């Protein structure tokens, strides 16, 4: 189907135009010009995506696959990949999410960025991101996917550092890119391993649908004593942890909040960070071959989930809270994947996309209204001032908290169920996380929208330095945001409300449309199908429990932050305690990474730089007898090397030259001496 490429290309064209001529358009046509161009491209590709989806649905479930082979890309040796896009149920879901939510966020951005002079750049980059993300999702082989994979990294770099004049932002951007690169490095190795192992079996391919059929051959293959499948999947999963902010590579995501809020919503909540989830489920056939890896994934997922949740509990920055909640929700998705419940993982991905995007945009609306105030302790009482924002935000919060019948309830419960079936321990942790989620999300709601306005309130030492400069702002009247911003909020809220109904489990009389839609994809993946009958009671039980836990979390939050009835005694004690500080300082993971990895690398590089300048070069200069070498030696640090290598070589030439000149005394008698000595030497040589 030719049209597929346009899903990808339209945003690219938009990006190209906006990034090259954007500034002119903005000057001549006006801000609306660039916005319309950008959003228009996004919407257009959304439209095409929808038609594609409809086409797909028209087909037989087994034959649901649309291909668009753009051009042969690389055909070298046994490697043969082409720039081709494929639309199958899985990628269709992703494409709809990306383009759909993407379009909404484009529209929203026009409202949110209304003061920014470089609007053209912003829309250009957003479009570019859509392009990359869609390439990632639609690519029909690993290499094309990798193009998108790194492409989104670039865009996220550029958008996090969008306000590049502040070094904090650019630093965050670089951090994000570098941590992603670490993942990409593993991803690359995994790909190569996979490719060559298959090539060894006579099936050199990187095309997904071919992989699905041939990876089975890897059974029993081993490298360095480790099953190839396990090794490859582990490497690929490290890649996923980089993109999807899982332990150990999650640290970049919270910092990434430095970017404009729409970016956080689009890239760091709804789409890019789910790339890892998509990749794993895209390669589920391979992963299913490696139970060990799946267990690792499940464990990492749960750990991340609860770990991030505990951090989120104590953050003051409205976006930081959401960021950590994203990390934790992604953890959920990986739990699902780890349990082999790919459909469940993707389902949660979708629902999460809706409510988390909505939450971020809501937060953005708040931040925008309160003049870029991000500290929740200076908010409050916005319920009345910005009702639309409040209600949408509330809906999404309930959704993420997993209250029925909202989206989060169905997706999360399906995961918890699968987790329980896999290993009750996972379920337990997941449950606690759910409780925490409910707690910190409602904590946020209460702090931001209820109570009195605390705008400009003075803060404790933990406060971000913004206090002073934002002091003046709170006199401004806070009011509801413009339509461009609220409309997407409403739509997303509806999504958060209804998206879950796609996957109402049979237990609740639904006919899990979503899983069914994906079943042709995951059919081959050894997905545990249809819950056994005696599982039904269990399923109900779990639902009830999780709902109760969620309610408990909410109540606690209510008591602490609204009624403040618990605040005084219990929490102040915890607040001074180690757990609080640990959580507040994000368990000092950043500091750890900085102290070890980064510092180490820099030190090494500095050492080598010195080595190169002083020693390698020094030796050379010595050999060249350049005076400079000698001076380096004079000031040189390493006496051993100095005396050992360079001085010697230096003398070898420079010295000899001088010595020979000294021999030329100018005294004729001496010359004759030398002559005589020469003769004798020759004669002796001859005699010997």
């Amino acid at each position, binding site marked *: 189907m030719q049209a597929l490429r346009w899903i990808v290309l339209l945003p690219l064209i938009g990006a190209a135009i906006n*990034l090259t001529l954007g*500034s002119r358009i903005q000057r001549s046509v006006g801000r609306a010009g660039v916005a319309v161009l950008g959003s228009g491209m996004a919407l257009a590709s959304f439209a095409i995506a929808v038609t594609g989806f409809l086409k797909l649905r028209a087909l037989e479930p087994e034959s649901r696959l649309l291909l668009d082979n753009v*051009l*042969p*890309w*690389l*055909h*070298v*040796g*046994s*490697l043969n990949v082409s*720039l081709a896009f494929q639309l199958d149920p899985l990628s269709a879901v992703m494409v709809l999410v990306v383009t759909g939510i993407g379009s909404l966020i484009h529209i929203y951005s026009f409202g949110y960025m209304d003061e920014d002079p470089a609007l053209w750049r912003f829309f250009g980059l957003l479009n570019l991101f859509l392009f990359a993300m869609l390439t990632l999702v639609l690519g029909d082989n690993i*290499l094309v996917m*990798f*193009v998108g*994979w*790194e*492409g989104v990294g*670039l865009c996220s*770099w*550029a958008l996090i*550092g969008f306000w*590049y*004049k*502040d*070094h904090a932002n*650019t*630093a965050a951007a*670089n951090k994000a*890119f*570098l941590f992603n*690169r*670490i993942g*990409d*490095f593993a991803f*690359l*190795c995994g790909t*190569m*391993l996979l*490719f*060559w192992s298959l*090539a060894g079996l006579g099936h050199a391919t990187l095309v997904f649908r071919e992989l699905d059929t041939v990876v089975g051959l890897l059974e029993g293959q081993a*490298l360095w004593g480790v099953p190839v499948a396990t090794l490859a999947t582990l490497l690929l999963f490290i890649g996923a942890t980089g993109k999807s902010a899982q332990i150990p590579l999650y640290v970049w995501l919270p910092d990434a909040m430095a970017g404009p809020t729409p970016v956080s919503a689009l890239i760091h909540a709804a789409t890019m960070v789910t790339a890892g989830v998509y990749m794993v489920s895209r390669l589920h056939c391979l992963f299913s071959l490696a139970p060990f890896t799946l267990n690792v994934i499940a464990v990492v997922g749960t750990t991340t989930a609860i770990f991030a949740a505990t951090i989120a509990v104590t953050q003051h920055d409205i976006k930081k809270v959401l960021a950590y909640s994203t990390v934790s929700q992604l953890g959920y998705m990986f739990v699902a994947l780890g349990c082999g419940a790919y459909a469940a993982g993707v389902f949660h991905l979708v629902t999460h996309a809706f409510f988390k995007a909505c939450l971020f945009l809501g937060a953005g609306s708040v931040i925008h209204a309160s003049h870029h105030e991000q500290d929740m302790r200076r908010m409050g009482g916005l319920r009345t001032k910005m009702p639309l924002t409040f209600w949408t935000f509330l809906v999404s919060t309930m959704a993420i908290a997993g209250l029925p019948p909202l989206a989060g309830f169905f997706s999360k419960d399906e995961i918890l169920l699968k987790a329980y079936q896999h290993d009750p321990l996972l379920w337990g942790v997941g449950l606690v996380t759910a409780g925490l989620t409910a707690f910190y999300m409602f904590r946020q709601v209460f702090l931001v929208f209820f109570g009195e306005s605390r705008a400009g309130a003075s803060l404790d030492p933990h406060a971000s330095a913004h206090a002073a400069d934002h002091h003046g702002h709170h006199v401004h009247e806070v009011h509801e945001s413009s339509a461009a911003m609220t409309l997407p909020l409403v739509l997303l809220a509806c999504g958060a409300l209804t998206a879950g109904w796609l996957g109402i489990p049979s237990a609740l009389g639904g006919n899990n449309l979503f899983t069914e839609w994906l079943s042709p994809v995951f059919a081959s993946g050894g997905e545990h199908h249809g819950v056994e009958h005696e599982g039904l009671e269990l399923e109900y039980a779990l639902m009830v429990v999780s709902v109760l836990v969620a309610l408990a979390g909410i109540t606690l939050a209510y008591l602490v932050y609204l009624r403040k009835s618990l605040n005084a005694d219990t929490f102040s004690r915890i607040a001074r305690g180690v757990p609080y500080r640990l959580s507040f300082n994000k368990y000092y993971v950043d500091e750890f990474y900085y102290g070890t990895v980064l510092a180490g*690398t*820099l030190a*090494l*590089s*500095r050492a*080598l*730089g*010195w080595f*190169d300048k002083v020693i*390698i*070069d020094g030796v*050379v200069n010595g050999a*060249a007898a*350049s005076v*400079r070498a000698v001076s380096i030696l004079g000031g040189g640090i390493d006496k051993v090397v100095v005396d050992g290598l360079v001085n010697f070589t230096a003398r070898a030439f420079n010295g000899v030259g001088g010595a020979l000149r000294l021999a030329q005394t100018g005294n004729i008698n001496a010359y004759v001496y030398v002559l005589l000595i020469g003769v004798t030497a020759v004669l002796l040589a001859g005699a010997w």
Partner: protein
Amino acid sequence: MEHFLTLMTFLPLLGALVVLVLPRGNANLVRWTALVSTLPGLLLGVWLFQHFDRSVATMQLVERHAWIPAFNVQYLMGVDGLSVSMLLLTVLLSPLCILASWGIEKGVKGYFALFLLLETGMIGVFSALDFFLFFIFWELMLLPMYFLIGIWGGPRREYAAIKFFLYTLIGSVLMLIAMLALYFANTPHTFDMMVLMEKAPTYSHGFQAWAWIALFIGFAIKIPAFPFHTWLPDAHVEAPTAISVILAGVLLKMGTYGILRVCFPVFPLATQEYAFWALGVLGCWNIVYGALCAMAQKDMKSLVAYSSISHMGYVMLGMATLTPEGMNGAVLQMFNHGTVTAMLFLLVGVIYDRAHHRNIDGFGGLASVMPIYTGFVTIAFFAALGLPGFSAFISEVLVLLGTWQYSKPLAIIAASAVVLTAGYMLWMLQRVWLGPVNEKYAGLPDMNWREIVTLVPLTVIVIVLGVYPHAVLDLFGPTLVALGDTVSSAVPAAAQAVLR
């Protein structure tokens, strides 16, 4: 086109002579003449690109004339896929460099005459098939290079120039010895490379061993491979922009080109034995070492110089593998590095022309001062750190793929460099272009049309080759496959296995 290569090679020389006889006063006339005299080469290059037969590995456009019968030296020119790609690179970069040298004020005539002479030397090296002729062209480049750095270079230009000169000369004298030894290795004595290749199986093992090493050192100095690399940072830092471009864009490639052109086909046995250590391991070391050193640099140019060392490591590594993926990747990397590094040096030149220093910590926030410039910089940097969609990604992936099959540890080490590369590139980007505006340079003008013209073609190529690499890959595909087979077939497969 009987004398195609002759034309291509000597038209610039003709231009040089014209430049020399022009009146002293009129600098612009000189500049335009120089520019014009590089264009025919470019056009011929385009023709070559269209009409080159991509399906065969044999030499094309061969010209053979007796030159010195008494010494059996021939004027023998010809191109195969390998040389064509390098020729294209040369004729492409030369006009751009002339444009980039527009600002030269001192000794204009001399400068451009030398530059054109240099171009003749480069084209000659890539199209000579008689070893003696090859050597003459090879040496011919030393003189102009020495003076271009030494007269028009930076403060420590004299030191850098002589260092470059002596370094390279050591390499060439070793090459000379090996060349003459080869000459006598056959009867009738000959310098004809194609004959030398045919007779490859007849050379004794010992002879192959030492001759390979002698030639390798000669070429490794040009690459430059650790530990023969220290001339490069100095030369780059001191050389004027355009010369840095040529140096990194073309001259470095001659090292690897020479290895592929001579060492591989003529000494397949020795290649099999030494490739792993001399090319594979050393190349890998180049990659990581160069990247780490780059991170420590304070001067933009020396950072880029070290990044060149790092990127040339991929070429060595790719060649070592002898796999189609690896070798194609290597040669493609030669081409891509040529274009990407050219961009980097041109861009550094832009800021140097305005601020007259290149100290990385001396800037900041240029993005808001020079947006267009920053746009190009971003593209160039991400291209350099091998971002997919840009040309360098293709070549690096191919090299890594080939290497993985050849030796997994090397592949992993080499792949790890993607992180380091991103590290130093982004760090530099952040320190120079991002962040708060440095008031000292708030008034800098953005790029002018000339600078943009020099960069646009390269940008286009970098992107196009990222999307459709076969535009270039097809040129040398067959050649390299044939070459790889020649070498691999030189020793039994069992022995190869041992080398892993």
